């Protein structure tokens, strides 16, 4: 299904979609308030953007420096060219450990690689330990938002689900009660797991450490109890210096949820004695995106989700409408690079309002890249029907005479035809909107009579 079809479906439940819009707007509003408490906010965004520009311009060097230092620290570094290799590497590590049950904290990269179904196919039970992710995992759904995975669900639905899966009281919808039930369930999993998987928020070239941020503490609960920690990291997650974290940790949580910082910000540099840390550096289309000059800086993304919370489309269409691992504005400029045909409607799922660009903590020009992807989509999709009518329009606008004739034809048509017969785009226009009353003359005609 295309984005417009999915969006129309989501909007059918008017009450729920209104709630979705208002809830995410509330998160954006919190972000606005907290960011305005930082006088140097815009300077921080500029710095973060500059640091990431430098990273992308020197990515190979930084990756080697990172690998060298991480290895020195006792971290085992792996490289994966694509999702299949990434998944295979994870499975191999699990098999070496004779591990058939693994706990995993939030990692958009592992979603992108479809790690869970791969491991399950090979007999490994995967437990997502972020509460929101566990909820959607119970439902066999992907997350609908990269920071708020279960934002598309109401507590009544979660209560039903937990009653079935965790035997909570039927009808008890209290979030504190439901969270406590999940806590008991997940702690049992943490204490039993031999291997824990996490994502990576930042990898520091200078020190060879990596940083994982959570509010629930679930990443740490997993890795510190397990013998082996597998960290999956996109190659663009590098920062040059440890002190760069000062800039990024000031921006990340404030942009994401309006908190001043996530409650747990763990810096992993060496394994505990007797334990192992494996780090997998994953490309999976990132070097290809780096090669696309117009779209390169989409790789600056730190996955805060602010562009989703602010997007008037996302708020009213839900994350699933994008049918892409990373939904929302940033997803709509990342995903076409992975599969242009599949994601061809995403660059059009925007009014180009530009709000995403202005909330982005690393100043990615998201709405300009949406515009650029549109130009790419129309090139590769051939000249379909829309293209044809547009070409005609260009023929009209190029020539003043043709423009005048077609304009007066249109005005006359509006006067004499019922709405349903007016040509196609205006027909859709008229489904839920009136057309303006057709004036008796154009401005041009008025001007000729009154001024020249």
């Amino acid at each position: 299904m295309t984005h417009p079809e999915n969006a129309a479906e989501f909007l059918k439940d008017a009450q729920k979609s209104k709630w979705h819009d208002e809830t995410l707007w509330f998160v954006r509003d919190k972000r606005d308030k907290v960011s305005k408490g930082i006088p140097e906010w815009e300077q921080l965004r500029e710095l973060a953007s500059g640091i990431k520009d430098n990273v992308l311009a020197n990515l190979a060097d930084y990756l080697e420096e990172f690998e060298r230092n991480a290895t020195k620290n006792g971290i085992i570094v792996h490289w994966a060219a694509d999702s299949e290799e990434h998944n295979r590497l994870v499975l191999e590590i699990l098999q070496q450990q004779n591990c058939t049950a693994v706990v995993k904290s939030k990692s958009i990269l592992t979603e992108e690689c479809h790690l869970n179904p791969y491991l399950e196919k090979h007999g490994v039970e995967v437990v997502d330990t972020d509460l929101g992710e566990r909820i959607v995992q119970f439902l066999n759904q992907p997350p609908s938002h990269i920071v708020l995975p279960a934002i598309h669900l109401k507590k009544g639905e979660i209560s039903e689900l937990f009653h079935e899966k965790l035997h909570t009281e039927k009808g008890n919808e209290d979030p504190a009660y439901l969270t406590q039930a999940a806590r008991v369930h997940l702690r049992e999993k943490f204490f039993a797991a031999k291997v824990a998987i996490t994502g990576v928020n930042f990898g520091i070239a200078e020190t060879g450490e990596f940083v994982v941020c959570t509010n629930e503490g679930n990443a740490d609960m997993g890795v510190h109890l397990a013998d082996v920690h597998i960290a999956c990291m996109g190659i663009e997650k590098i920062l040059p210096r440890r002190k760069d974290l000062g800039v990024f940790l000031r921006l990340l949580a404030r942009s994401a949820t309006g908190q001043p910082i996530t409650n747990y910000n763990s810096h992993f540099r060496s394994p505990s004695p007797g334990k192992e840390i494996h780090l997998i550096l994953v490309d999976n289309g990132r070097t290809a995106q780096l090669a696309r000059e117009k779209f390169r800086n989409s790789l600056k993304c730190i996955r805060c989700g602010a562009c989703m919370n602010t997007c008037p489309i996302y708020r009213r269409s839900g994350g699933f409408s994008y049918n892409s691992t990373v939904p929302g504005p940033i997803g709509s400029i990342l995903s076409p690079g992975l599969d242009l045909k599949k994601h061809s409607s995403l660059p059009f799922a925007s009014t180009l309002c530009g709000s995403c660009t202005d909330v982005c903590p690393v100043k990615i020009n998201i709405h300009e890249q949406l515009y650029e992807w549109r130009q790419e989509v129309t090139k590769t999709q051939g000249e379909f029907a829309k293209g044809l009518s547009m070409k005609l329009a260009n023929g009209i606008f190029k020539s003043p005479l043709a423009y005048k004739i077609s304009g007066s034809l249109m005005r006359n048509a509006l006067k004499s035809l019922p709405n349903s017969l007016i040509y196609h785009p205006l027909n859709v226009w008229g489904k839920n909107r009136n057309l303006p009353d057709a004036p008796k003359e154009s401005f041009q005609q008025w001007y000729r009579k009154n001024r020249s």
Partner: protein
Amino acid sequence: MSSREKILSAIRSLTLEPKALPDIPNFSNSGDLVERFTLSISGNKGEVLSKSEFEEWFSSSGFSKVISLSAQFSELATLPLPEDPHALETLEVAILDGQFGVAENGAIWLEDTQLGLRALPFATEHLVIVLDRNRLEDTMHQGYDKIAVAHSGFGLFLAGPSKTADIEQSLVIGAQGAKSLRVVLI
């Protein structure tokens, strides 16, 4: 070619315009550090206590499973630090020393030397961090200046208790990790 070489050579084959690494200015804010730190911790749903307030809370709560790695409160421990973190499953209170705190967001820096076991501040039901009130930094920038690149296998900025808002954005304290954070400013 290995994937490592494939990735690195794909990047090196691109002509990328050089971009300088920006310097980070020394941003600082005004205001009393203790006041701002206290406000930040309570915003993160933790609590800042004086020594006597803490002692009152502790003695009235009747905990029987307590680990204390803080010299200030070593007498409160009822259990030694175990070898295996799995023994922490039913721990009620962990008392640790923090290295320093950051006023702008309440983040407290802890390293392996303060933690004993890395799982300790997460697995415990209640977490208490003892912090010298003279060891407060203004922003994260001063925080990172302070730790510089000194080596610790694990380090952490901890700013509050385990929390979640994954069910309808209702904030719930005590997700998978510690259900409370108390910071004792000495």
